[in-house]
């Protein structure tokens, strides 16, 4: 419990510093290109990780095939340039239908 509180405070402080440091210190200066490129690449790498970890769960314990049709439907909706929220709604509707069958 104490650990969780510390984690929440730590995350809040990290966020505060992240968002504040650029405006306060950097001004118009830019990062070296290599560092910038790694920072740019982090969201793609971690989002891919989040999808997989969330789908499979630890030791693949949460792997649930009934989620896949919903995710495929969301990808198709995305391909047709539907907004993010619309894609998620489609995934939910498809998941409900698949589990009804």
């Amino acid at each position, binding site marked *: 419990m104490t650990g969780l509180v510390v984690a929440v405070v730590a*995350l809040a402080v990290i966020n505060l510093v992240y968002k504040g440091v650029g405006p306060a210190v950097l001004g118009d200066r830019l990062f070296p290109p290599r560092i910038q490129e790694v920072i740019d690449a982090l969201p793609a790498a971690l989002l891919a990780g*989040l999808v997989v970890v969330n789908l499979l769960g630890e030791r693949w314990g949460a792997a649930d095939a009934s989620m896949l049709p919903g995710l495929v439907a969301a990808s198709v909706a995305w391909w047709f340039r539907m907004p993010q929220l619309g894609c998620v709604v489609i995934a939910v*509707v498809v998941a409900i239908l698949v589990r009804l069958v």
Partner: protein
Amino acid sequence: MQGTPDGSSEGWRGGLRIGIGLAIGAFALAVSFGAFAVTNGWPAWLAIVMSAVTFSGSAQFALVTAASGGSIVAGIGAAALINARFIPMGAASARSLHGGPLQRALEGQAVVDGSWVAAQNGDGTLDRAKLFGATLVQWPAWIIGTAIGALFAPSTDFMRQFGLDVIFPAFFLVLLLDALRSQPRFVPIALIATVIAGASVLVVPGGVALLLCGLAALLAAFRTARRLDP
């Protein structure tokens, strides 16, 4: 392309209008975050506090995922990596914000993904009033959504039956696809991260698996080095 004059009511109105759309999405996501946190053993009040002080879905989700596996430090690490994008986003906003270092650091707190994208003027500057307006609407939606999800904590069966467990993976998948559409050069990195995640989550907690995925991003540095030294 010129945006609205800074601080104008038009900028605020535009921001509030866009913020409402973003807030609906944030609200739905927050409900499922609140429920997710409580079903993973977090007290409801702490989940709500976290939403109020962090306001970042992917980082909060990563922290809860990792902490439920018993590795709080890895969770903080993963969340910190995920949110590292706020450093360049904040830096890019610097010249559009007002006042001295302290005030600009404070104003920089308004940077969240949706608002930051919506406030871009298209010439490297951003519409400060629009940024504030859009964030101002989303923040309460994020907190209230978390509270509803955490306090009414639906059961896992309920979540499954109504497809609510699909919200997070679907949301992250769409965010990932969006990121790759705008930056196709990161497709190999995302694929490598997928493999790392699938293999590592078999043996290590989720937060550690996420941290390992971050390693894939380092490949971008090598590629940049190659491009810079032909």
